[in-house]
């Protein structure tokens, strides 16, 4: 994996790989919340918050990217705490709707605020300042950076999933009432998941800001959050780590490779999503199991825990 840039010379494909990695991080953040039973539409919003915070810190406050990165993560955490404290009180559809509203409002707020760049957005965001011998010119350094970030993300999440916290989250998801009886404070754990998930999304956004070097509110509308959700569903919701990875990869590469008209793309994505949800709710990664048991029933209702479970670290238990 480290040698990828030497093999792939085309900047176009490198760009796709880098985008995939960024998208994987977003998918991971969605899955984290899902592991606790909460569906969020706010992933895109926090991505945008992270991106803008980082860009503004570098452009207006003159900080180095390396400082802006953790700071923007912290900013996401604070905003997530503020909103999360209110909205994580009632899980389920109410939570989903509220995150949806957040994802619709945030781009508006940014767009109408001149200080934040308005609808035109921020242009000419500088790349990360050189670190050691590494200068950020061309795709390769960015690739390494995003891979490092992704690895840190995966490691952190894996550690969380296999710790008491992860177990508590999964308990809440499978049977919240029982979890409560076992002493698990539902509100605190849900809020924790929301904050961590938002921070991760924010960091992904921060990277993107300095990679793409231009931002505008149109980039993180509800559409972005919907895409993130699609990554997770497509890959397989029961696989908290591998699922979003597969889903993000497919969603980033396939539309580009198929070169469909930009016009008709949402129609196709929409149709695919509907078919996916009806016929393969467990996502792509559940195909092997599905084929194995040969049950293609249209009526096969799977509950939110998706395909039949096997004990596993990264899988919905």
């Amino acid at each position, binding site marked *: 994996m480290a040698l990828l840039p030497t093999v792939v010379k085309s900047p176009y494909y490198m760009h796709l790989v880098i985008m995939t990695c960024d998208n994987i991080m977003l998918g991971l953040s969605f899955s984290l919340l899902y592991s606790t039973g909460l569906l969020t539409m706010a992933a895109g919003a926090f991505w945008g918050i992270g991106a803008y915070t980082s860009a503004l810190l570098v452009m207006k406050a003159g900080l180095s990217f390396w400082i802006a990165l953790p700071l923007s993560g912290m900013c996401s955490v604070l905003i997530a705490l503020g909103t999360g404290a209110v909205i994580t009180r009632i899980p389920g559809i109410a939570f989903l709707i509220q995150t949806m509203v957040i994802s619709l409002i945030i781009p508006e707020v940014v767009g109408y605020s001149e200080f934040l760049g308005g609808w035109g957005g921020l242009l000419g965001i500088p790349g990360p300042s050189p670190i050691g011998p590494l200068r950020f010119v061309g795709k390769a350094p960015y690739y390494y950076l995003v891979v490092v970030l992704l690895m840190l993300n995966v490691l952190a999440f894996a*550690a969380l999933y296999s*710790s008491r916290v992860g177990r508590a989250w999964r308990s809440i998801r499978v049977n919240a009432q*029982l979890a409560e009886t076992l002493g698990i*404070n539902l509100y605190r754990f849900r809020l924790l998941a929301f904050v961590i998930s938002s921070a991760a999304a924010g960091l992904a956004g921060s990277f993107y800001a300095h990679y793409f070097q231009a931002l505008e509110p149109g980039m993180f509308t509800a559409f972005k959050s919907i895409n993130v959700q699609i990554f997770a569903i497509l890959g397989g919701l029961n696989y908290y780590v591998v699922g979003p990875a597969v889903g993000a990869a497919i969603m980033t590469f396939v539309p580009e490779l198929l070169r469909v008209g930009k016009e008709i793309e949402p129609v196709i994505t929409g149709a695919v999503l509907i078919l996916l949800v009806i016929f393969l709710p467990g996502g792509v990664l559940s195909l092997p199991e599905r084929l194995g048991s040969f049950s293609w029933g249209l009526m096969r209702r799977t509950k939110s825990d998706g395909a039949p479970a096997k*004990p596993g670290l990264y899988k919905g*238990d």
Partner: protein
Amino acid sequence: MSDVSFDVSEGEIVGLIGPNGAGKSTMFNLISGFFPVNSGKITYAGKEITGLKAHAVARLGIGRAFQAPTLFMNLSVFENVFNGFHLRYQKSFWKSFFHTKGALEEEKRARSSVMEILEFMGLAQLKSVQARNLPHGHQKVLGVCAAMAIKPSLLLLDEPLSGMHPEEAATMGEIINNIRASGVTIILVEHNVGAVMRLCNRIVVLTQGRKIAEGMPREIAENEEVIEAYLGADDEEEFD
């Protein structure tokens, strides 16, 4: 509920009986924090717990098993009980996150404790079976196991015998006795009045949200009001 007061002493098994709709499960929901309390007080081991939320109540050492099997259905028997060890971990979260030696050892100890509980309850053989594949009786026992995982000093058992055939019920009765022998206080809600008579030190009778009697099993069996309440409301109860 109105005008219900009773005390439970350490080490007792208190039975809560009454015809359908008497408010027995409601009482449990109030104690374990699932329903808000409008008036009255609940104290536990000298501390007032009225209005505490369910997880806080669990933290104080009050465990609960539900009438309908409330389990992590897609997990194994072992995992079900293991998840209940959440409260027992001493090491901080950060140590758990970084998977330090101390945290890992704690987990290992927890795992062996889980096996102890499973053996105590007779489910050790089935430890890898998925909860949803267990027969009903075993599911109820598993529910009690999970409640025991938090090391409660008071256990609220909501109709542990319902839906069981005689052998399963006998096993459950034994389990209940063993639990009490290990020092846990138990409040038992049950429809099976015979079992209640056998297992409990004292019985409290509720009907329509009120307490109508309290005393030793024999007294209750002869209490006219109680007989009245049962015959009047619910013809199916056997009364031996």
